[in-house]
């Protein structure tokens, strides 16, 4: 099986806002990148963390765990973590794992 490369893009649309745009296969082999990056994202100015999953083609349990870890890190910081884009596949996955009741999800995709 050929896998789509996992990419992380980081932007700062506002001084207190960081947007992460993830794309590709977010799984056991690639989730370590985001996990390692998580502490460095929690800058003192950070108030809002936006996560765009529109380009993510696959998430496994390790990918989900990394998102949960990111969510907890933001909560402790404290900063608000919002999902700003996702495919129906990921929305379904969040529903199955009941994470839709924990995360802030975009109303359009949920």
């Amino acid at each position: 099986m050929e896998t789509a490369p996992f990419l992380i893009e980081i932007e700062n649309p506002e001084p207190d806002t960081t947007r992460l745009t993830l794309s590709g296969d977010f799984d056991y082999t690639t989730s370590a990148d985001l996990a390692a990056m998580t502490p460095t994202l929690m800058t003192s100015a950070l108030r809002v963390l936006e996560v765009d999953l529109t380009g993510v083609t696959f998430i496994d349990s390790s990918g989900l765990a990394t998102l949960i870890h990111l969510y907890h890190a933001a909560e402790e910081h404290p900063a608000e973590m919002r999902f700003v884009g996702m495919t129906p596949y990921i929305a379904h996955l969040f529903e199955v794992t009941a994470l839709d009741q924990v995360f802030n999800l975009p109303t359009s995709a949920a």
Partner: protein
Amino acid sequence: MDSVTHAPSTEVLRAIVEAAADGVVLCDADGAVVLVNAAAREMVPGDVISLLDRAREPGETYETALGDRLLRVRREIFGIVHQAWYLRDVTNETARADALRAERERTQFLVEAGRRLSASLNTRRCARATAELATGLLADAAMVVLPPGGLRRTAWLRSSDAGLEEGDIPVAHADQVPGLAEALAGFPPVPSRWLDPHQAPEWLLPAGFGPVGHLLVTPLPGNGVPAGALVLARREGGAGFDDETETLVRVFAARAGAAISAAVLYQEQSATNAILAGDLRPPPLPVVEGLELAGSLRSAQQTALIGGDFYDALPTPDGPLVTLGDVCGKGPRAAVLAGQVRHSLRALLLLERDPEQLMHLINKALLSSYTPRSHVTLVLAAIHPGEGVIDLAVAGHPAPLLLRADGAVEEVDARGTLLGAIKSGAISLRTASIELAPGDLLLLYSDGITEAFGGPTGREMYGSDRLKTALATCAGMPATAVVERLEQLNSDWLAGGVFDDRALLAIRRSR
């Protein structure tokens, strides 16, 4: 000066021959020596005639020893009636050629050693290759003594013209071979000439080997720890171990030691993985009156990817509790976590049988776990066999599917939060209670089934719709056949592609 008719004059011949850089001995037609030039006189201070092999044909070349020198001699017709013997001292040339040949032989040996030693991650095969490689070029008999596995005995493999032999010796017997105990402890080798070959004990050599002339004991250096020792023996009367050979043996031992210690490490790891994976292996399913239970668990192929799918059927006085789950991550950590969940469930079941309560308890247990990211998805199904009622709780896991006897497929309306994930400890669960009529079947599955990548493009997910469609074709089939069929259809979809763990478990009410 007289005119020359048949042959050049002696003066002319002398002038030509003396000018030659090679040694030249000139004979007349009767074989009497006419001339010996300066180069030949220098090369052969004594009797030159004894070096001339008159049996040789003109044009022939041969080599002959003269003291510690080596001369190359060529017989030629010279002019019309004379015979010439050309002499050249090739001692240095030959020595260089011999050195080059020996060097090539050593290089070839190391290349072959590298090829054979890297071909296996099995300790015994690596030790065997080491012993076999060393026999021939390096010694008449070669024994690899492996590092002691326990406290008492240590294994050895030996190669010689008697073939390959293996056995073990008490660790204490290593003291009987000069230098062996030191080599096994990883001390640098001592030169062969310091070792008394007559002290070699009988067990060191194959039966009928004869007296040992030379012994060389070399440690096999591993990754930080000694990987055993190599004992080489040559028969009495044969050549000893020279400096070049001892150096070659050390280089060879370094390669062999690295290969053996890598194999030892690999085997230890595989054994650990096998133990861990064994804890994930599904147990035999119980026989329950009026019910059929069937399961299938296909683990990801790579050992390093021991996955976290598991299932169990735990008996309780009120009927079995069936569980199917998936722990986050891969490898030994996932295996340990899955084992913890299974054992926790077994213990909790002594106090609590309600699936919803069990979910809360396991969630709390996971949140207090020392292992970070102990996330688990789980389905718990408490079966009341008499009435065919099943109480279901689902946490972070795909909802089970219900196949009615008429072929209708429904998704059970139960869901809940991934366990061990949300720090506050609050999980939301929507449980369900379903009733199986005779012929109905409940299917529990892991996301490895629906997330199997394959199909015509190789990049398409199997998906829950395909699973439901496949399940609908299974109405009326026994539980075992349903599981086999779904597993087969899913494997066809994968078409040999890489897969994650895939678990299926069917509960069917037979009457």
